[in-house]
């Protein structure tokens, strides 16, 4: 069997559903793959390790991929896990913030992903506001708590399938503003990247086949899939995960291998316009649809 060491972007959560199901249901094994998953706590690490050849594959984010490629990391996207943005701007329902415009003069917390201030800038730009009109605070791992505790009025970088549910469970229902509705081009939240040198390796094609099968299973049998998912590891069975699972179902890429070059080009152009990257290279140089 071909070994694949896969670094996730964060602890295992419903976003990783297809990967877990493929593992649980034996779809990877079917493809003669032996997949080993690692959970890091710092999402910026996995792509670096893959670029350095220390792991085969990493879960990363499309916007970050553009930055990484721009910085010279030899990475190639070979698949998509979550095909829409998850990132969103979240405010408490009780905050009285009805639109992005109301953010003027407010405090916005974010978890440094490298991209959040840009998202906010684009969103504010639609309302003819700039970053100067809000106060940005890095709150790192405390998005929900800082919001509940009233230390910030809004947070950017919250995942719509996760933080919204979390806040609701804590008794603080919240509202999300979706980035792709506020002037940011739609992108793939979670992508799978490999080292450039390995991009042609046929095992990644087989990997995507297994993933596709797993996604189909999830969509067809959401409840059985949940059962299977929560059985993967002891502490996965929680109220939060159950709710997040339901909200994530519709966001998994149905065709993980498929690549929409135009969409990547669009996001690349956006990144360049925002000054996050210097160039917008040819998509084929950093993204392929594996065979």
């Amino acid at each position, binding site marked *: 069997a071909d070994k694949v060491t896969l670094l996730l972007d*964060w*602890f295992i959560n419903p976003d990783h559903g297809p990967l877990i199901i493929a593992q649980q249901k034996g779809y990877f094994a079917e493809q003669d793959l032996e997949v080993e998953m*690692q*959970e*890091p*706590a*710092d999402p910026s*690490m996995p792509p*670096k*390790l893959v670029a*350095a050849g*220390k792991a085969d594959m990493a879960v990363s984010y499309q916007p970050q991929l553009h930055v990484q490629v721009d910085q010279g990391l030899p990475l190639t996207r070979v698949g998509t896990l979550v095909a829409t943005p998850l990132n969103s701007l979240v405010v408490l329902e009780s905050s009285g913030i009805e639109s992005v415009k109301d953010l003027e003069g407010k405090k916005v917390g974010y978890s440094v992903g490298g991209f959040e201030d840009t998202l906010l800038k684009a969103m504010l730009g639609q309302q003819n506001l700039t970053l100067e009109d809000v106060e940005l605070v890095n709150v790192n*791992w405390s998005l*929900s*708590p800082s919001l*509940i*505790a009233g230390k910030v009025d809004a947070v950017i970088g919250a995942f719509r399938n996760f933080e919204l549910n*979390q806040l609701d469970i*804590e008794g603080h229902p919240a509202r999300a503003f979706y980035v792709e509705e506020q002037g940011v081009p739609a992108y793939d939240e979670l992508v799978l990247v490999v080292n450039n040198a390995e991009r042609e390796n046929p095992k990644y094609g087989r990997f995507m086949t297994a993933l596709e099968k797993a996604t189909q299973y999830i969509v067809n049998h959401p409840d059985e899939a949940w059962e299977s998912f929560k059985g993967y590891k*002891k*502490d996965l069975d*929680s109220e*939060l995960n159950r709710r997040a699972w339901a909200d994530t179902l519709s966001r998994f890429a149905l065709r993980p291998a498929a690549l929409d070059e135009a969409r990547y080009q669009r996001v690349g152009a956006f990144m360049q316009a925002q000054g996050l990257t210097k160039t917008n290279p040819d998509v084929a140089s950093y993204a392929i649809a594996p065979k």
Partner: protein
Amino acid sequence: MSVLRGLGVAAGLCAIWQLLVWVTAAPKFILPGPLLVLDALGSNSGLLLEHAGVTLAEILLGLLFGVLLGLGSALTLIWFRRLRPWLLPVLVVSQSIPVFALAPVLMLWLGYGMASKVAMATLIIYFPVTAACYDGLRHTSSGWLELARTLGADRRSLLLQIRLPAALPALGSGLRVAASVAPIGAVVGEWVGSSTGLGYLMLHANARMQVDLMFAALLVLAVMAVGLYFLIDRLLKRLMPWQPETLFDNDNDKESLA
């Protein structure tokens, strides 16, 4: 310290904790009360124990290597005087780099396994131990050294029988500080990358807002650290019979002059 007094102190701390919760009216996702945490401790005991084992192993190994390395460096500094003006600044500089900023580099070299966490713990206790050992070894009364020299002591016995015992109190201080910072190293290592250990568990619980579980892990960590500290204190007391006073020795405490 008697077990009874230990329990008393623990109970007192819990009371203060509960009071803090009441006074600050901290919501439970920020600071859960002791009862909640004890509850989480009970219902997750298996999980906690499993992760605690890993962390403990990392801490102990880190302590071992850190102390050996620190002692070795201090000895090098003592023995090779010529090297001193060059090595010391290097040491200070190396210390001034926050170890966990280097964590990614360590991960890259040592992988996601235990090695990188042990390395983190080692690095983080390396400097305090080195500094304490070096300071202790350096300040040996010159009379003893001269005497030993006329008695025909070679370097080795000079070190083992004069410098080391004379430095023991200082080494003890260093070791105590080391014991109390080693857990930090291990936990930070786990934060940066791992899938086991109390640090992992804490981060994980924190991300899910299972703050009670996070504090339960913290509690286990604290208990481990305290245990380690007392163990080392005991050990030092054994090693220094001529100096009856260690940190928790109050029964035959010699000084009441102050």
